[in-house]
């Protein structure tokens, strides 16, 4: 089932490869159907998933490169389940949302998106380190092309920066993976890259530090954590709407997911030891991202920096290393995907109409586009974590978790709660309120039914998660607890004595 899910989009891409380029309509529909198919599969997976178990489910394992000990091993637990669900939801939305804006090279675009979906799903479901790395890096290429081909003026610079920056960080992870494998040969007596096997061997504390550092660097850039974030504003700004949506909603989660997936399993002691550092950077990110958002003049840059702030919360939750923090981090990952994805779609709606991202080019839009205004309002308050929306659930749990670990973390992070309103409402006011000063008021027509169709599921998720987060939390709690138990045991009884 998992393999079907992972490779369904790729199979769809192959199929679309045979469709002539000029049949754009058919390609669009095919692409959408494929992603919807993946969504159905993911929904079924969600339904079948047993939330009471903290282990891997639906595992599939088969040797891949036996001589090197590389296996094809996929599986889903509570953590990956949520992210797989998010991925499956976001992709059809992003595709549908780009129907209006991507009018050139539709086929290549659709292929890139489908390839990207496979890579992302694979990243979330891999349980073999090499398989994981393969998917992890495979994400870069379609994404860089999305930015570099369909992006705006400075796209080449942004694509290169995105690619090289994230890649530079992740190759060190590759070295660490190899090192783990080699250590595993010594300690397990077998050649394996299997995550679970390597986790069982119990890495000596002295080795955990450098190896975790290599992993953490790769993840931290992807998240991105301050001060490794500067690729993000450029990538977001230049990417086409769908690219931004995917980037924000799904790709950044790969970084946070990495921390949650590999930290407790492979490097429990190192994770525990570096939690204060992670938290510090996270808090700086929260406040810094928010403050910098406030003075942006480009809407997409503003949202990009808000991502830095929001993901700071996620990292803070992870650094808290308790149930609330981690659960909050997980929920916040989903929330950020939904809300920031929606924000980028909102910017996309404006951009499609006037081809400007400059805040100064707008003003009084609410009067012209009331439905759009309502959508924007809901998304903005969700992003600002207003209770009743999804954002609050995540931030509250994170703050609670952080508070329990160190009250100062929460006290400082709460500043982000305030600042988020400052920049979001500022931007909202500049764009939507005041007299109509937008440059091309005649072009600012309200949302079309297709665009509404893009937003409705996101808004539904905003409220669904806000009002009944247990639907998600219950799926992941057992997994999170198991991970925490691992850390506790490792810290209590250092494995290094072995």
């Amino acid at each position, binding site marked *: 089932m998992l393999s079907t899910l992972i490779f369904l989009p790729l199979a769809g891409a192959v199929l679309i490869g045979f469709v002539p380029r000029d049949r754009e309509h058919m390609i669009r529909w095919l692409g959408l159907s494929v992603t919807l198919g993946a969504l159905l599969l993911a929904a079924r997976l969600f339904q079948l998933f047993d939330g009471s178990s903290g282990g891997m489910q639906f595992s599939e394992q088969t040797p891949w490169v036996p001589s090197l000990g590389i296996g094809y091993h996929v599986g889903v637990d509570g953590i990956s389940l949520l992210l797989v669900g998010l991925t499956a939801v976001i992709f059809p939305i992003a595709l549908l949302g780009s129907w209006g804006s991507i009018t050139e090279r539709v086929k290549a675009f659709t292929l890139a998106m489908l390839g990207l979906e496979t890579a992302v799903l694979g990243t979330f479901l891999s349980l073999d380190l090499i398989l994981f790395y393969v998917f992890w890096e495979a994400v870069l290429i379609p994404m860089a092309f999305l930015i570099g081909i369909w992006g705006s003026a400075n796209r080449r610079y942004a694509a290169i*920066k995105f690619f*090289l*920056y994230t890649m530079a960080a992740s190759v060190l992870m590759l070295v660490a993976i190899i090192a783990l494998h080699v250590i595993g040969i010594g300690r397990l007596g077998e050649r394996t890259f299997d995550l679970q096997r390597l986790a069982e061997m119990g890495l000596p504390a002295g080795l955990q530090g450098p190896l975790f550092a290599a992993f953490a660097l790769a993840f931290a850039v992807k998240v991105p954590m301050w*001060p490794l*974030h*500067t*690729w993000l504003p450029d990538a977001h700004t230049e990417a086409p709407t769908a690219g931004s949506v995917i980037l924000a909603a799904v790709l950044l989660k790969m970084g946070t997911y990495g921390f949650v997936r590999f930290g407790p399993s492979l490097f429990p002691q190192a994770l525990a030891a570096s939690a204060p550092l992670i938290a510090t950077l996270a808090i700086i990110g929260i406040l*810094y991202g928010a*403050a*910098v958002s*406030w*003075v*942006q003049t480009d809407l997409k840059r503003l949202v990009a920096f808000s991502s830095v702030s929001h993901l700071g919360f996620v990292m803070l939750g992870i650094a808290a290393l*308790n*149930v*609330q923090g981690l*659960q*909050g981090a997980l929920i916040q990952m989903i929330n950020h995907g939904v809300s920031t994805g929606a924000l980028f779609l909102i910017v996309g709606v404006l951009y499609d109409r006037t081809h400007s991202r400059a805040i100064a080019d707008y003003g*009084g839009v*609410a*009067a012209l586009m*009331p439905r759009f205004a*309502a959508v924007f*309002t809901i998304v903005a*308050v969700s992003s600002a974590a*207003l*209770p*009743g929306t999804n954002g*609050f*659930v995540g931030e*509250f*749990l994170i*703050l*609670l978790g952080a*508070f*329990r670990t160190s*009250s100062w973390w*929460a006290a400082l992070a*709460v*500043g982000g*709660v*305030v600042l988020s*309103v*400052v920049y979001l*409402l*500022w931007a909202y*006011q500049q764009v*939507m*309120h*005041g*007299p*109509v000063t937008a440059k091309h008021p005649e072009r600012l027509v309200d949302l079309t039914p297709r665009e509404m169709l893009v937003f409705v599921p996101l808004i539904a998720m905003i409220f669904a998660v806000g*009002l*009944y*987060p*247990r639907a998600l*939390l*219950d799926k992941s*709690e057992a997994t999170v*607890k198991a991970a925490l138990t691992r850390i506790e045991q490792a810290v209590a009884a250092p494995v290094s004595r072995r």
Partner: protein
Amino acid sequence: MTIQFAPWILLWPLLGWLTNGLIGRRLPRVLSGWVAALAVAASFATALVVLSAFGETRAPGMSLSIGLPLYSWLGAGDLDVQAGLLVDALSLVMVLTITGVGLLIHVYSIGYMAEDPHASRYFAYLNLFMFSMLLLVLAGNLLVLFVGWELVGLCSYLLIGFWFTRPAAATAGRKAFVVNRIGDAAFLLGLLILFTSLNTLDILKIRDGAAGLSDGARALAALLLFAGATGKSAQLPLHVWLPDAMEGPTPVSALIHAATMVTAGVFLIARLDRLFLTAPGVPVVIAMVGALTAFYAATVALRQHDLKRVLAYSTISQLGYMFVAMGSLAPAAGIFHLVTHAFFKALLFLAAGSVMHAMHDVIDMRRLGGLARPLRWTAGGFVIGVLAIAGIPPFAGFFSKDLILEHAFALGMHTGNYLPYALGLLTAFVTAVYMTRAAMLTFGGRPADQNAHPHESPPLMLWPMGVLAVLAAGGGALGAQAAGEPLLRFLGPLMAPAMEIASSPPALLLAGVSIAVALAGVLIGWTAYRDGRDPSLGVAGTFFERGWYINDLYEAVIVAPGKTLARWLAGPIDLGLIDAAVNGVGHVFGGFGEAARRLQTGYARQYALVLLIGTILIVGYWVLR
């Protein structure tokens, strides 16, 4: 049990909101108003039903508070937040006040907004607000309360900025939200402390468990929550948003920024009285903040020219009284004042709205005057409101304010700190003066603009004012000794155990003093502002007019430096340092690449030289190893 209907109190406005929000634009304008009003009316009626049911349960031995869990909202580890309601005397009083006054204001709004093309959006917001406010007061869990707490803030933002094409309105809404958020952040931290110490956020459990907390935790949690309350209830130092909030439609000012939402802070303290009032040192802080705010706002109100701003500052001032009551360990008295204040302040605002309606949105008192004649009913209502707020018996304000001063005096007797009382008394005098001034400048004297042809508002607006006028005049009965203090007795059992006042103050004497001060104030005001005169009060006047320059101070000390800091971070730091470092790495590599390219000169002899160098190095290494 009919008490199970309590959720419907919430559901009606929610349905109203959905109706107006989803299909409102397709409804006839009048209809959307009536839908909204009907929803509130249904809510009010449900509240009455619940009240009657609640009355039945008040047999001895029965719980004073009935929790109605709905569903498990949020859980992680040991955190389990039940979304549920809490029905008790306090919440019922609040619900009735909110739905009652709210209903009147909804009806008024139908008339007021009759001409506005976006009325459906207005009523949708208004109903959403009703829902949020009711959620706030009915919440059985502090986190659920917080949901309402923030949602009312959102509604406030939306409604202040309802006429968002006016930059001032949009900015005011944003300011309100941001300032509230600052308080909310503190609130949130308070919540975290409570949960980490008590492992629950259930209000009943917190009430029961508060005594078990350490002094430090209790005080810190209480202070943080109180900080949240100062934001919502516009107390010093977070009061700055409320005067600006007057940019919203006047019924909104009446409902949200006078009668209901701003009292949420007071309600919060009453709700958690056992936490707040037993925490060491906290009551004094509350009382002092309240007293100072009351006095501060009253002085500022003295020199405002915008009628609604006068009323806004007076609201801040009156809220200060309520906090004095809380700080004086008399939450019931505070709630009493909350209720009477809701009556007379709503009345005053509606009257002001009526004036605006008549004068085509002119609200600057310097351009008003002599309206008593054309706007007879409005003027009458306004005068009743003035008398009530000034504390002239037998109008409602007198009883509640006097009760607070009495408790403040008792606090002084108990602790030796008479400052809250003294400030309260002084404020009472100033209140009488500035309210008289407002009435005189608006309705007395001669019309400032001869060309205006004011006309009285339609019945749909006058009737609610009438009802409120009756309540403002007679509402004191709820807490008057002569009437048997029904409200205080109703609240009493819930609140009593938290308080202990050692000695009883000389009640009659204090009442006399209050009356004398109020009368003096009215008299002086009458004398000073007769015939449309408005003495400037010199330097002090300007000081008052600018709100003691607090706004300017914030602007200069927090906002401007904050923006500068943010610009500095975004420019020199983010682009200039962090990003430049990243790009610098790229450029360094590019530079190396160019250098490496230049090594390749194209001359074979030089290639041979390079080869020889390599040979020497390698062979040299082997030879010398």
